[in-house]
Structure formats: C-alpha cells, structure tokens
C-alpha cells in the first residue's frame, strides 16, 4: 500500500490518525472508561462546582456531575453527530454531483445552481435558520447541518467527474454501450472516491465544530446530554470562578477537531499533490 506508506512518513498526519484512533476507542468504551459513569446523567447537587481533584479530574459541574466522565461520554455524541451528518450529506451530495457532472442538460444545471444558492450563505447561518424552522432538538440540528453541507460534496464530485468523464476509458465504455448509470456508479465513482474521503475527513472536524456551536446556542443537543458545546454554554454563568467547567469541554473539541484536520490534510496531500499546502 503505497498510500499508507506515504501517510506514515507524514508525521502530522500520523499524529492526527493516532488522536482519532484514541477518540474512537474512547467513544466505544466511554462507559467502561469513565471513572464515574453514574455521574454522567445523575446529579449530585451536594458536590456541585468542585474544582479539579483526584476524585474529579476535571472538576464537577453545576449539578455536581463529574466533568471528566461527561467529556469522555461526550465523544460518543460528538462522533455520532459528525458521522451521521457527513454520511447524510454524502448521501445527498455525491449522487447530485455525479448526476450534474456526468449528465448534462437543464436538470444538471439546476443541481449546480442549487449548490450555488446553498453556498451563498455561510453554512452556520443557514443551518441556524433551517434548524429553527424544524423543531428544536438534536435531530433537526443534524438535518440542518447535512442540508447545508451536501453542496460541498456535490461540488467536489462535480469537479472530479468533469475532469474524468472526458478521459479515454469513459469514452471507450460509452463506445461499448455501457449504460450511463453503470458508467457513473461503477467507473466514475471509484475515481472520485479519494477526494470524497478527504472531504469527509475534513468535514468531520468541521461538523464537530459547527454542531458544538449549535449546541452552545441552545439549538442542538439537549440537556442532560453531555454535549461539549452545551456544557460550555451551561458553564458561562459560573465564570470566572469555575474555570474548569468551560475549559475542559473546549479542549476536547480542540483535540478532536485537530485530529481530523491533521489527518485530512495528510490525506489531501497524498490524493492531490498539486494541493500540497503545509510543506
């Protein structure tokens, strides 16, 4: 696997990979790893707002829950949200991009103009509006994020398909009478897989950030869910005394997003050497 070899040479990318591996493991075994699993949801108001100590590594929150355990369990929701959003956005964006890139005519044109419209407003703003129109809650926030992220996939796929569809092998397949659907799915799609993976990896990090922002604004996750953005929002009125309350969930976001970004950058450098940015 030359790709893997090149990835291993890229120290930042390896760091990103290790961070993500650790986070995924944490997410899977969160309930086993968390030192005080009963204090993730259950309140213990006598021990509220305790500073970090050996009992509570990251201190406790306003309802006396263990912030360390909540941050660990929070990886689950963060990853679930990000993964669902990215997959949903992919499920919409990739077929759209394939269609618009390969077919031509007014419908294909319409798809691309649609992406223009969606991209005409910064993603967070549009997601806020969409989430607000749907009822509140995690599901609507996720749908809103996917609704506003798919154009990025559509664009990526569109550009790649445009590039490959004029290549010889596609013309040969057309000559052989392969159906357009078959060409698109069996031959073009594998060719655009790499940029999609890169986009998805970077999208994971981005989605974690955006969904945390939605949570912070009270539109995403709902209490008592240990959502990082929500925890930071809850912590605000206890500042600056209870500094730990907002610090650690924020660091969790930072590390996770950093992991995805490092890995995504590394993958992009390999997939598209023209775009080598960081070296």
């Amino acid at each position, binding site marked *: 696997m030359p790709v893997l070899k090149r990835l291993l040479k890229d120290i*930042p990318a390896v760091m990103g990979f290790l961070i993500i591996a650790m986070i995924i493991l944490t997410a899977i075994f969160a309930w086993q790893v968390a030192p005080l699993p009963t204090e993730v949801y259950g309140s213990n108001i006598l021990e509220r707002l305790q500073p970090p100590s050996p009992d509570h590594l990251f201190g406790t929150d306003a309802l006396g829950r263990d912030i360390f355990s909540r941050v660990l369990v929070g990886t689950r929701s963060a990853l679930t949200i990000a993964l669902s959003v990215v997959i949903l956005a992919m499920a919409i964006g990739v077929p759209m991009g394939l269609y618009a890139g390969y077919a031509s005519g007014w419908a294909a044109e319409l798809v691309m*103009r*649609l992406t*223009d*419209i*969606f991209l*005409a*407003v*910064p*993603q*967070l*703003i*549009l997601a*806020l*509006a*969409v989430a*607000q*129109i749907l*009822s509140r809650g995690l599901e609507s926030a996720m749908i809103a994020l996917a609704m506003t992220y798919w154009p990025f996939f559509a664009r990526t796929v569109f550009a790649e398909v445009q590039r490959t569809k004029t290549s010889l092998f596609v013309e040969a397949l057309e000559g052989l009478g392969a159906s357009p659907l078959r060409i698109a799915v069996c031959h073009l799609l594998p060719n655009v897989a790499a940029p999609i993976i890169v986009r998805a990896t970077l999208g994971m*990090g981005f989605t974690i*950030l955006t969904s*945390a*922002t939605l949570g*912070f*604004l*009270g*539109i995403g996750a709902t209490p008592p869910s240990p959502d990082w*953005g929500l925890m*930071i929002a809850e*912590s*605000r009125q206890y*500042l*600056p005394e209870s*500094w730990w309350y*907002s*610090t650690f*969930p*924020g660091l969790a*976001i*930072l*590390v996770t*997003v*950093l992991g995805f*970004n*490092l890995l995504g*950058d590394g993958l992009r450098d390999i997939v598209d050497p023209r775009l*080598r*940015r*960081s*070296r």
Partner: protein
Amino acid sequence: MLRFTIRRTLLVIPVLFGLLLLTFCMMHMVPADPAAALAGENASLERIEEIRQLYGFDQSMPMQFWRYLLQVVNGDFGLSLYSHRSIGGDILLRLPATLELTLTALLFGTVGGLSLGTLAAVWHNSWFDHLIRLFTVGGLAIASFWFAIMLQIVFAMNLDWLPLRGRLPTGMTPPATVTGFFLIDSLLAGDLATFAAAMRQIVLPAMTLSLGSLATITRFTRSSILETLQKDFVTYELAAGIPKRRVIFPYALRNSLVSPITQVGLLFGGLISSAVVVEAIFDWPGLGSYLVDAILTSDYMAILAVTLVVGTVYAFVNIVVDLVHSVVDPRVAEEL
C-alpha cells in the same frame, strides 16, 4: 475593470433570487402561524384574520412571493414578530457594527497572516516555522465561542487589561454617525478618547474572530511564498542584480497574494458565522447578536431576513475579493 465589475455583479442576481425563493419556502414551513404570532397573545380570531389580510397571508403563493420580492427589494423585511419593530430598520442599525467587527478581524487576519506567513517562509524549517505550522492547523480547530470565553477569563476577568463586553464603555456616547463604524466616525469627529476606547473594546472580539482567518492566511501565504521562491523569475530577478529583500517584498509577496486572497472570500463566510456567537458573547450589538435574539424568541421573519442580508453582504464581499484579485493578478480580469 468596469465591465468586469458589472458582469460579476450581474452573476450574483440569480443566486440572490434563488436565496430569496429558498427563504420564502422556509418561511412557509414554519410551524407557527405568522398572522397569529403578529397578533400577539390572547388575540381574537377576527384580529388574526385582519392581520392575515393586512399582510397578504391569505393570497396565493405566487402572489405572496411577488409581494415578498417587492418588499425585500425595497429593503422592507416586515415587522418583527417579537418587538413589532421594522426588521429592515433594525438590521440597518446593526449592520455597521457587524461589518466593523468582521472587517477589523479580517484586517488583523490579513496583516498578521501575511506577516507570519512571510516570516515562516523566509525562515523555512526553523523553529519559528514549525511553530507557525502548528498554529495554522490548531487555529482552525478551536471553537470560536470557547476561545472567546477563554480570552474573557484571561484578559478581562483575571488580568483586567481589556474590557469585557460592548462596543463602547458604558456611559460613553457614540460618535456622530457618518459611516456607522465607531473607529472611523470617532476619528472623523477628531475624538481620540472615543477612538482609543472603541479600539480597546474591539480587540478581544476581533482577536477571537480573526483566529480562523489568521491561521488560514498564514498557511496559504507561507506555502505560496515558498512556492513562488522556487519560480524562475525569482532566480532571474536575483540574477539581474535585485537584492533579495526587494525580491521577496514586494515582488514575490505580490505573486503569493493570489492564493491567500482567493481565501478571503471564503473566510468572510467563516467570519460572519463566528460573529454570531462572538457577538453574543461580547455583547456586540451587531447582526449576530440580533440573530441570536431572534432565535431565542423564535422570530422567524427576522431570522430569514438576516439570512438574506448576510447572503447579500457575502456575495458583495466576494465581488470585492474578485476585484482585488484582478488587480493583483492581471490575468484574472481577462478570463471573465
């Protein structure tokens, strides 16, 4: 240049029209009845019906869309369901604050990013360069609302160096409105005390906001300069006897501006997004905090109006970016 501007502007119109259609559709998906909401609590059915007719909510969809289109083109976004004030008027009052903040942040980001990026490229592979590279990845991974809170804890709450909130210290009268930008208006009025105060107020929010653009611009400047320094014309300029510092600044830097500048348009989107939370955290009386208020009060009309306005501002920022781009790189203007 003029033709370029006009064509570029015309290209925006269909997109904005689509956006208008999108927000219109969204407005009609809203769970609450706008007429009932406008009528207020405990309103009678007749009153709701009156309002429905007054605002044309009883007409056919295309008719309603036409009305909406005419309204919006005239800058009238209707009445806020919450405050019963004109949304367009309130947005106009608040837009300068947001623009002042985002543009200041963009200035921080561009000036800082170009400097840091150039330094990192010139001292390629030094410890400074490595530090900068770490920053460019890390800066994009920080949640702006968290960073804002951290800055508040450190610089405002604990060290007490900078103000915590607001656009001016409480009790200070804003300068006479010319541009709506306090920094510029206070200078125009020759009021240095207000200028200094406004400057202190804007530092923390603008720093928070500029983090992402600073990281991005640094990153693109650095790689772009590294790439430019490999170019033949750099060797040629050196060979022709031009000193190295001159070759880097302005010659190589100007070449390297193209890729950071194309990023600015995208960055502006990020800036506006972050401005929503950053304004809410720093009590910055701009569009962002208006949007957050609208969300907290489920003021759909206001939310959609902000979406439209942001989309328009965003489109025009991108036009300006393209214009700057065409000035920096003369080849671009001829492509369009």
